[in-house]
Every structure is written in structure tokens, then in C-alpha cells.
């Protein structure tokens, strides 16, 4: 079945430099610097952050890639699921904190 998200398409990501190559080159260099090695954060911590963002941004490619990356960084399913919960509560919190705006406006609307 045809789909906008084909798992094999992830392999084509490196080919985005077919057009505007210098920009793609800079992006991949930056990407590698950020995710490819321990820095102030370990590779595992960065992979867990990326996994959480993969969920909040709803990217199937990234979910597959960073599930593997987390395993290859030594993370376990508890840590990975906890990272997804962080994304989930942020989403919930972001929704709920906007209710302050609703309350503000509500006050103006109520005599």
C-alpha cells in the first residue's frame, strides 16, 4: 500500500543534497556534531531527547531511527518510555498552560 511514510525512504535522507547541496552539507555536518559524540550531554542523553521530540513531532522516520539509536547508546525500554512521557506531559502542559489565556479573557468577558 502506498504511503507518505515509507520506512525505506529514510535511506534517501542523505540525498536531500541533490539540490541546494551546500546547505544540506552544512546541515549534516551540524547534525553529526550535535548527535554523534558525547559532549556536555552523553550520546545516550541526546538520543533520549531526540526520541522524545520524534514523538512530539510525530515523525515515524525519527521514531524508528532513535529507537535504534537509544538501544545503541545503551538505553533501556524504561528510560525510552520515560522520555516519551516527558514529551507527553510537555504536550499536555502546553495545552493546559494556555488555559491561563482563556482565564484572562474569560475575566474580561464576565461582568
Amino acid at each position, binding site marked *: 500500500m502506498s504511503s507518505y511514510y515509507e520506512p525505506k525512504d529514510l535511506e534517501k535522507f542523505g540525498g536531500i543534497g541533490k539540490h541546494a547541496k551546500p546547505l544540506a552539507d552544512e546541515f549534516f555536518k551540524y547534525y553529526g556534531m550535535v548527535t554523534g559524540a558525547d559532549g556536555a550531554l*552523553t*550520546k*545516550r542523553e541526546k538520543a533520549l531527547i531526540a526520541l522524545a521530540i520524534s514523538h512530539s513531532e510525530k515523525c515515524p522516520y525519527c521514531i524508528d531511527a532513535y529507537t*535504534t539509536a537509544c*538501544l*545503541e*547508546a*545503551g538505553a*533501556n*525500554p*524504561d528510560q525510552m518510555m520515560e522520555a516519551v512521557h516527558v514529551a507527553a506531559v510537555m504536550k499536555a502542559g502546553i495545552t493546559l498552560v494556555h488555559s491561563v489565556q482563556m482565564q484572562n479573557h474569560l475575566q474580561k468577558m464576565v461582568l
Partner: protein
Amino acid sequence: MNTTSETKYDFDALLRARGVELPPVAIETLQINVTKLCNQACRHCHVDSSPARTEKMSREGIDRCIELLAKHPGLKNIDITGGAPELHPDFDYLVERAVALGKHVMVRHNLTVQLDPHPQTGESKEYLPEFFARHRCEVISSLPYYQEYFTDAQRGNGVFQKSIEAMRRLNSLGYGVEGTGLIFNLVYNPVGPYLPASQASLEADYKRELKQKFGLTFNNLYTITNMPINRFKLHLEKSEQYTSYMDKLLAAFNPTAASGVMCRSLISVDHDGAIYDCDFNQMLGMHVDDHGHPATIFDTDLDQLLQRRIRFDSHCLGCTAGAGSSCGGTTS
């Protein structure tokens, strides 16, 4: 000679293209696969070991190994593997003779064999920790993770809890305890088609978690990459992940890791006495050639084997990916 038609994963061609040469450097370790019998049937096992296997080395073969150890001072180590090598009827005999010759004895001990009855005879192996300690064997044990989920997924239900109990018994005799000299190393391998994390970071995690949760200690953690052969290869093919795993290994080829591969300093012997470059080649039937015949412990001059050409195939990509992989962990 390449035994597969997978030109994409032609290891010899890769070495040539990268200008890497891997001749033998020494024969320091005699690794003997004494039996394919095991009390476990792990999902990744490259030996396809299980309680149903019956292959085992004859007493004549065991005696010949001991003779070779005595005759070759350069053979400093004996690495006894299987299956669960302790299930071989002459296991104790082999260890005792090797120790008497002053050799360093390493045992690939799966932990649960201490607690499970012998699959064929029902005999108890609870004496093993004390036996290992008396002979000061180095004990090397697989524990795929410091948690139950991954460990049992790979090695079978209940294996984690039994492994913890077996480790407790080894620790109580001083194994893995600083200052005793009784060496107890653990082996990590991924539970699926991915590469191991950094050996140092995983070792730190294992030490912290096993100490905090169970009060257990060990010496070193060795990370090993899963070899794409036998039972694990079958899993990769069934789950349509073989090509992506091989591509991953190929992309992670590391010449520095390649220079440290274990086949350059050991020879592997099967239960029939045939000689191989490593335990993986053994499982693939890729014997060392001795003038047109399979080399064996009975009629091959070991000194000549330093001149041999090590046989490589696509599975060797597993030992050269990332930080490298061997029976002693990373190679770079």
C-alpha cells in the same frame, strides 16, 4: 576463498580496498568448543546450542588438547566454550590438567548451568563456583543486560533471576571481588540487530545497577556484536532485517578494530578436533586448510599455522564494526 555469493559484503575485497592486511600474529589461545549441548537455547546463539544437542569431544580429543598445551609454551591460554562446556563429562579433567600445566584457564560459563540439572543426566552442577575458585579459572559469563526484560527475551524466561543467584554464589567465593585475583567478567551483546553501546559506558552502568539493586560485583564488561550467522541470521531473514543489519555492519567497518580481531592470535577447535580461525568459522564449517585437508589437532603442526591465511567471509563484518568485537570485547 569466499563461501557466499554476497559480493556486496565480500570481506576480503573490503580489506583489499582499504589496504588492510590481517595475517596471524601469534597462537596464544587454544579455544576449544567441547560440546554443543547447553541447558539454554538462546535466540541469538551462533552455535545453535540447546538441551537437544549431543555433539561432544572424545576423551582422545581432550587428551590431545592437553598434549598440545604441554608441547607449546606459546599457548598460554585455554578458552573452554560450548554449549555449556561444564556439561561435558571430561570438563573437570580438562581444567585440572590445563591448570597443572600452568595455563591460564578461561571458562565461558552461562551462569544458569550452576542451578539447572544436566539436561541429559539430571546431575547437579552446584559445585562449579567452588571448583572454579579452587583452580582459579577466569569465569566469563553472558548477561545481555542488567535488567530482566532484555536478558530473558534473549536467553529464556527466568534466566535473569537465575543468573543473579549464580553471580551471588560466585561473588561469595571472591569472584569479581577486588583483591582476590578471582576474575569474573561479564559479556554484553545487543538483543537484536543493532550495535553495542560504548563498552566503558555500559560497564559503568552494569557496575552501578548490579551493585545498587543486587549487591553484585564483577571485573570487566565485554561488549560483543551479534554475528549474522546461524540462529541469529535466521531471525534476521525471517524479520526481513538481514540486509539492513549487514549494511549497518559494513557502514561501521573500522580498520583499527579489524587489526585487533581475535583470529590473529587464537585457534578454535571443534568437538571432532578440527581447527578453525575462530568459533564463528567453526560454526560455518570454514576449517583451516592443511595441504588440501582440514587441519586437525591430531595431525597438523601448530607452528605452521602462523603461516596460514585466515579465512574471512561476510560474517567477519560483525567483528570489525564500530569499536570491534571479540571474545574479549572491543578490539580498538
